């Protein structure tokens, strides 16, 4: 499958600055965190480092499979695309994601889905996350 996707390079590089979270929200032109599709949290206290929670661009996404209204469809390069009009806000996708990478937009009552645009990577000063062709990444693994 061709297309770009977001990939984790090395979580131990992460300093927990959360600049990626703010970058993601800024795509819509606003500040804050309300619509961020990525989350950095400590791995049980900062002394243990950080967990980077971001969509892995699954080729057979669990979130898509459980959507009762087929609001989620397969994205080229992996992951899903959300069709807002079809979504009824049931949160099934949130529960289905094994790594908890489907976030919730309280203002619209709909999921926040990573579109793998890579805007966040431009603000990751430590190279924790990268954007690249999904094929290449798959082969690297």
């Amino acid at each position: 499958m061709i297309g770009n996707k977001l990939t984790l390079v090395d979580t131990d590089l992460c300093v927990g600055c959360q600049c990626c979270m703010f970058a993601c929200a800024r795509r819509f032109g606003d500040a804050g965190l309300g619509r961020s599709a990525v989350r950095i949290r400590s791995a049980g206290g900062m002394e243990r480092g950080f967990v980077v929670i971001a969509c892995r661009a699954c080729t057979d996404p669990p979130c898509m499979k459980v959507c009762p209204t087929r609001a989620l469809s397969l994205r080229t390069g992996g992951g899903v695309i959300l069709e807002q009009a079809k979504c009824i806000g049931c949160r099934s996708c949130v529960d289905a994601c094994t790594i908890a990478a489907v976030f919730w937009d309280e203002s619209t009552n709909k999921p926040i889905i990573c579109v793998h645009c890579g805007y966040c990577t431009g603000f990751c000063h430590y190279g924790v996350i990268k954007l690249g062709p999904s094929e290449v990444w798959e082969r690297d693994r």
Partner: protein
Amino acid sequence: MIDKDPLTRVLFVDLSSRRFWIEERQELFETYLGGTGVAIQLLKEKCAKGTYPYGPGNPIVFSVGPLNGVFPIASKTVAMFKSPLTGNLGESHAGGRSAVSIRMAGYGAIVIEGSSDMPVYLAIEGDRVNFRDASVLWGMGNSYSVGRVIREREPGAGVRTIMRIGRAGERLIPYASVITETYRHFGRLGLGAVFGSKKLKALLVSGKRMIRVQDPRSYRQVYNEIFTALTTSPLMKKYHELGTPMNVSPLNELGALPTRNLKQASFEGAESISGESFAENHLGRRVACAHCPVSCIHLGALREEYEVEPYFYKTKMISYDYELIYSLGSMLGMSSPTDLLRLVEETEIHGLDAISTGVALAWATEAQARKIISEEETMGLHLKWGDSASYIKAIRFIVNRSNEFYRALGDGVESTSRRYGGSEFALDFGGNEMPGYHTGPAALLGYTTGARHSHLDSAGYSIDQKSLSKKDQPTPEGVATLLIEEESWRQILSSLVVCFFARGIYTPETVIKALSVMGWDLTEKDLNRIGLEILKAKYEFKLREGYDPREIRIPRRILETPTPLGNVSEEYLRQGVRAYIDQLDISNETFETRIKAIAAR
């Protein structure tokens, strides 16, 4: 400012009646931006004259500003309260995730009033305030555990702050700190003890929301400019590489590193506790405050063997910074970096301000050597420079308030020396133990005059540095002018609230641009006026609470030990204080009344 920016919302929590409510205070934020500017106004409103610092009438104000959650390195929260240590203005700043969390929860300020009859912690999730039973957490031996329990019990991982106190705060040590995100602190002036007096063990704030900006395109443009400046600046790179301990070696070489209770200003063991040495031998991880790409927080790994069993180890991560290396290191003649980390850990466990603790122990060591106090007072300890085991025991005695002497030492060096003598080497300014830059007259005058008696008020050391390179000693009046200028400008930064490390990037020009994104139309002149107004408001509070700058005790030791610019005279400092007060021109009634009262004596 932008219409409906949640910044204008002030959350009030009354611990006595377990009620909370939100007030719209647009006028406050419109006029004073946020942070320090707003906090001092709320403090003046809520803290009546002569309030007992440990009484329910002493409010705790947390405040953030328009740039928090919007621009990078706007990562700080301002806390204000009446200080139990100095008896006047209590102001302390911290980063971690505190500022972003408060802003994302939808508040510009949180004011905690009253006091609880049982230990509680507060969990603020957006508009909901939960009062939680903290009986089990009260008295817990290690502050790390308190953090862990709350972390696992409450939701919001990644978008929350967890501020908590240790046993020092519970036991009302007036230099107890509030710890946030394990490694950052509202360290100075005793916020931890004010928490303790309210039976408030911890405060969790979480939230995530969007904040509207004036124009998304210019927002992204200004953001990118600041972000690029932050990530390409050589100074920021140094903060990342070595962190604040980068200053240990240069200050030592300069002869400005207070050593052994400032009997000297250089330390023969400085190299082993320098930023370079820690980075090479101990640095285990670097972490950042929320929304700051610099990542200056350095965690040292301390691997220790259990004595009872061979090959049984534990590895602790302990954050180290310049001020701690000064106060628990050179001030105590501590040249072993591992011993130093152990001492830092001990202050973290109990939630003590490391600067005050180190200065108090340094005073006690010298006092014992001079036989002002004996082993009877120290409960059998022979305090010796470099002896970390004794110091760790002494810290425990302080926190446990084990006898009359440790109760006094736990109240700070000023009150201890008043009781036992030795005030000539009790290193505090206005009751606040001194910071670690013995660079010259401007630094010393800054500690004397600064509203917080902190090196962060007006950065006198940077004025000294310039005098040193120009080989030109300015007059006290000239220094006072420069200090007021710097202290005023810093009121703006701490109202936004931007980390002072980025003051070279947040120039007036950049601040104006960033504020315009948030809907403020201000000029540099406006900013200077607002900054000065905020500084005056802080001073008015100090004076109202009985602080008299002209009666401030100047410890003889700071005059005796030469700075890189030579010895500083008391006359120079007194003249500087007078000039500072004159130039600040506080035409406030409280000051007039105070002057008359002094004149009438």
